[in-house]
């Protein structure tokens, strides 16, 4: 498939050269298959399920819908970059504590979506939480434990802020 394309992507603050890539490759494919960052998951390839959610310049996007070669001059953040020292973020810990993880395939995308929500809005309403997560499909949990995880993360942040 080599078209001898060469470009580089900045992912989680690190520059990655992308060599010999076909120009049609999605950001999801390049992250997973070329850069060794499989945290974003492919489940629908249509931007419906949110499993592949990453941040591009701080915006949450479906990486399956973004051509990798179009985001060369951006800051890309993936689930692997949420925590630099290997510890869990408050959202990740809340997902574990509240039983929001079953098969876990949607989990990285949901964790990204929740971080994005709480970065924009520290105290979202129930409706705001549901709307913010409605682009992420989970087939196992029925969402109940995920809502609990979001609420737990919010309340722990508030406690820590006191």
């Amino acid at each position, binding site marked *: 498939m080599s078209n001898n394309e060469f470009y580089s992507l900045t992912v989680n603050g690190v520059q990655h050269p992308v060599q010999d890539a076909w120009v049609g490759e999605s950001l999801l494919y390049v992250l997973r298959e070329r850069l060794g960052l499989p945290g974003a998951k492919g489940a629908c390839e249509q931007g419906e399920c949110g499993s592949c959610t990453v941040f591009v310049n701080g915006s949450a996007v479906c990486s399956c819908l973004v051509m990798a070669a179009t985001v060369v001059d951006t800051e890309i953040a993936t689930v*692997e970059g949420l925590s630099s020292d290997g510890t869990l973020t408050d959202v*990740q810990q809340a997902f574990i504590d509240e039983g929001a993880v079953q098969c876990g395939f949607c989990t990285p995308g949901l964790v990204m979506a929740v971080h994005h929500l709480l970065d924009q809005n520290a105290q979202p309403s129930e*409706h705001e939480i549901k709307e913010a997560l409605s682009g992420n499909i989970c087939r196992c949990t029925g969402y109940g434990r995920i809502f609990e995880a979001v609420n737990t993360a919010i309340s722990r942040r508030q406690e820590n802020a006191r």
Partner: protein
Amino acid sequence: MSSVKTRRDVLGTSALRPDGPAKVKGEFDFTSDLHADNMLWGATLRSPHPYARIVSIDASSALKIKGVEAVVTSEDVPGQLTYGLISSDQPVFAKDFVRYMGEPIAAVVADHPETCRRALDAIVVNFEVLTPLTNPEDSLNQSVPSIHPDGNVIRNQKIVSGDITATGPIVVEGDYVIGMQDQAFLGTESALAIPDADRKGVEVFVATQWLHEDQKQMAACLNLPEEKVRLTLGGVGGAFGAREDISLQVHTALLALHVGRPVKMQYGREESFFGHVHRHPARVWMRHHATAEGKIVKIEARFLFDGGAYASTSSAVLINGITHTQGPYKCANAIVDGYAVRTNNPPCGAMRGFGVVQACFAHEGQMDKIATAAGISPVEVRLLNAMETGDALITGQIVESVAPVARCIRETAALPMPDPLSPNAHELDLPGGSGLTAQPHNIVRGVGWGVSIKNIMYSEGFDDYSTARCTVIDGKVTVKFATSEVGQGFVVLAPQIARSVLGLDDVVCDTIDTNIGSAGSTSASRQTWMSGGAVDGACRMVRERIFEKVAAENGLNPLSLVIEDTDIVDSMGTFRIPVLQAVQGSVFSEEFEHHHRATEDLDDDGQGNCHVAFAFVAHRAVVDVDPELGLVKVVQVATAQDIGVALNPLSVTGQIEGGIAQGLGLAVMEEIIVQDGKVRNPSFTDYLLPTALDAPNVVASFVEEYEPQAPLGAKGVGEPPCISVTPAIVAAIRNAVGKDIPRCPVRPQDICL
């Protein structure tokens, strides 16, 4: 951040999943995340036609594409040309005929998924297109030609029970239609096959529900001894029945052996819709005869399950459906006729609920009709007829399981109702959601009920045993099993069992692979009972060895020793030693097979003890409906579920909430649309799944009555949540709009036209 650990993660606690940290960090290895050095990609050529004769296949152009290593067809299958869970009727690759849209014809292997796609496009297949058989009623017609050498009727079974002339003053009937649902697990089918250097064996990492069944079917098709097909469970992104059948297992291994290099296959979402079986669409007619008070006197029923082109588990789905005709209610007299038939529609097989979903949708519709005729409430009619332990099913089988049906109904009824819809309700709380499509003053609210019985474990004489090994080295416990972890949480339950039995806390699960005996399938709500029983048995055997050692060293009777928390104590209360201390320097390892009690086939009249055990659940649904737009918002689902005991309450809650969401999907949005044998919506854009905005508020109550037959007192909890919630929601819609809606999913036109 996390609280200080003050308790041991034993049975009964909400122990947290050991795979949780890796999953939230994106570090958990799903099968689709696996790579091998020198790896190639495989892809499948599929039929665009539901029924056609293959005239010729020409792959010469595909083979000329740079990067393409090989193309394989049925000519290249070294062993058995077909596979199947119950009957081996499905070709590895179609040879003479394709019998459903999406049937595999060939597979390519190349250096990049895009090269594979171009190669598939370059393969020329000449078809003689035939008229598909798509109406399952036609499959029963003897004059319609068979579309498969095994015939068009996969199975027919009757049940004749008691006095078939019995009747009563109330006679109600309904003709119910259940749509084709997709399991829609998030992690699509994936496998990585690594051939042995001599190409006489293969290692396969695969997302599956049953490693040993895959191994058996793969070995037969690959013409290899079973021990040369070594399977390891790759991370599984959900299953719900769709991974019980072979999908890409044989193809991936075949390609790897063919080219002598590692090969990975992974379906995209569209291919996934064609690559696995679905929930059977069914038509169920029922006529109930009842006393004036509303007690069931007799049930007449006819079931027609559309099995699609290949048998899969259709024959077992049929038996599950017809043997659950009466639901969780007393009934002495019945005459039931059931068929599972072959068509050129997509093949159908296992999905959570397995035939009982279809039966329940019909019998619950009937219960509401009896209630109306008798002038009593939906709750009263269900309490009046509620089954109890010791009652006989229409198969003659006595229900020996704990059967707290009335308690499930009462506890559900006691759960709080939601607040009425506010005139100022947020748009997201209205049917249709955002965009202000519905106005609060147009909304009508309805309440509906569903109650169900579900068999757990496999039926009809099948010995679906499970195997586990417990090894203790210097106090560190390893439990080994081949139980597929598909998301349900057996990897948290198994260590809980070991901690409870052994009094040791350092427990890990070994790799899940075929280096131990079968665990049976992760299906039929059976792994807590079966693999839980196997882990419990293996740990108990190790505990006996530990007691023998401690007794010998201390001059005690091993039978006097027990585990108390983390200590070994004797019954006299004079001896105490921490287990950890007692096992230092020692190695113990024991293996145990757990078998459930034997079951038997049904006779010609459908009589026989064909099931192992039963679980029960009640659901009450509250919906808001816009009758003009035909839009529905499921406001709340209340449920009380018979679970035996809660071994991990958090996991039980997760199963209940997740199952309810899937049942909601079947009630109001999920359906694979098939027209003339062609699937019209194979994508997440067109096949609608419940989102966070569709999820109802769930209020749940555990009905805990220890099940004496179960090794841990616990019943499986996976399937019941999704069974009676669907009829409950549809009943609530009927209640809201006053229309007799006989099908699910309920579409807007079913409400407003």
